[in-house]
């Protein structure tokens, strides 16, 4: 069961520096929301606050509310580890665990969270790999190192690893920026399928990609170096790309800047 996220007046800091200011937005369940904007506008930083990965950095700090179906992720009693179990993440560069086989990579999240039963694991791994459209390609070499796959396969392996722990939301931080066009297409296909089961948030530099895969698009911008990034507007993707409300959005989308 996918869940919706509501963000209320969120500020994100690196030490004393405010990187993202005053974001308020909703992210629908079972849909794809794309974050676009120029480099340094804080869209990736903001994405990392949605599963409390930002505070992994020693100087990372957040204030505001992130509600997952109404429950505040930044509540004092909330365990960030449990948050990340519920909200998975796929990174810019594929990062399979180098010490583990394909099978172990997919099973890693479950194993490390205490699931030991081999038969159950096998079941989950197969389903996760199928879910990531990778099963057919790797089913005969599950015991081979994950690092031996191609870049696109590695990224799908990372997606399989993320969905194997059955998250409710999947965050993707420029998942295709290190991949070739064919692998990118495979991932995009996969995203459109995954949205049947998951709430997906994707950061992308590629506007065509945002237009192709997302239902809603959020545009972030930055006033200048040193200024915090801000959410300019968020709307249905079709609306954003045809008739945005803000001039800055139109400038960015039409390639006049950024």
């Amino acid at each position, binding site marked *: 069961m996918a869940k919706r996220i509501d963000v209320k007046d969120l500020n994100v800091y690196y030490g004393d520096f405010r990187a993202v200011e005053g974001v308020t937005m909703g992210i629908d369940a079972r849909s794809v929301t794309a974050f676009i904007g120029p480099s340094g506008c804080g869209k990736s930083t903001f994405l990392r606050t949605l599963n409390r990965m930002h505070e992994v950095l020693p100087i990372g700090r957040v204030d505001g509310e992130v509600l997952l179906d109404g429950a505040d992720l930044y509540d004092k009693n909330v365990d960030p580890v449990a948050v990340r179990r519920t909200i998975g993440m796929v990174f810019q560069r594929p990062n399979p665990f180098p010490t583990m086989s394909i099978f172990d990579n997919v099973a890693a999240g479950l194993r490390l969270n205490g699931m030991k039963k081999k038969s159950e694991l096998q079941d989950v791994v197969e389903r996760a790999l199928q879910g990531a*459209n990778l099963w057919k390609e790797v089913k005969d070499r599950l015991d081979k190192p994950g690092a031996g796959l191609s870049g696109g396969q590695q990224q799908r392996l990372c997606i399989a690893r993320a969905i194997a722990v059955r998250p409710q939301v999947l965050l993707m931080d420029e998942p295709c920026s290190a991949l070739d066009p064919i692998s990118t297409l495979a991932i995009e296909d996969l995203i459109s399928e995954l949205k049947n089961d998951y709430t997906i948030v994707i950061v992308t530099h590629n506007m065509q990609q945002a237009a192709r895969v997302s239902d809603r698009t959020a545009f972030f911008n930055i006033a200048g170096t040193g200024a915090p990034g801000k959410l300019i507007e968020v709307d249905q993707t079709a609306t954003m790309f045809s008739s945005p409300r803000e001039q800055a959005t139109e400038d960015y989308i039409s390639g006049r800047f950024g």
Partner: protein
Amino acid sequence: MATTTSTPRVPDAPPGPEGLKQGLSRGPDRAFKMLAGGSSAVVVALVVIVGVYLISKAWPSLAANGASFLTSREWSVADPDALRFGIAPLLWVTVISSVVAMAIAVPVAIGVALYLTHYAPPRVAKPFAYLVDLLAAVPSIVFGLWGARVLMPYVQPFQDALKSAFGWFPLFAPTAVQAGTIFLASIVLAIMILPIITALSREVFRQTPVGHMEAALALGATRWEMIRTAVLPFGRPGVVSAAMLGLGRALGETIAVTIILSTTTGAFSWSLFFGGETFASKIANAASEFDSPSKTGAYIAAGLVLFLLTFAVNAIARVIIDRRKGFTE
């Protein structure tokens, strides 16, 4: 590409909002962090113990010392009521033997490390890199034994040639010492620290980002230019720390120097072809005669100076590394 299965991929009931509040991970997390922090505390305590004990044992002897500790060449510590000891010759022999060893070893080590990483074909590089690593582990007493028993006769003619050619220069002045000279000790020290400096430098050179090297080559650089523009700048802090580690070892090396160096009596000489004692060999030579606290204190005071010396070397290395980091990152 797309699969047609529409089976639900998230069959299990997900944890509700309450699931987020499982504080399960925090207990073990805290315990693990305390284990790591506690180990660090023990390490800090070790250093404090070393410092406190050495100073507390050395202090009474230093206070009772009748000679100038830093400048005197005397060493008579048998009579607790007439302590007279100074470290001037120890300091000289320790520093000059190590510096000469460094001057020999570091250029060679960098050359070998570059050879093994960028020149040698893999089938040569691998076994030799392995050999160098193994040699880094050869005990120093073996080097000392070899230096005194095997190398010495080969070095003597070379020494004599240097003496007759450059004898006018104080460092190469002839002396009465024939066999166990500082010069021989330096050569053996150089050979001893060569593997460790090579092994560490090789590791850093090997980690040079391929992107940097390819960028240089793509600009039309020769192999040497690529090394100069990509490999050496990247590896410099690592090489400096390796060299300093080598220097620290040479300064503190005990048994090899003890075996090789002839202890001297009579007139002092600045020559490399003189004998003498380093801090470490002085202490080692006295190892069986620490019978009175005042005597022991005198040797511990010498040990403290050696400690300060190696510490200064490390501190300099650290400053250099930290400064360089700003440029490489």
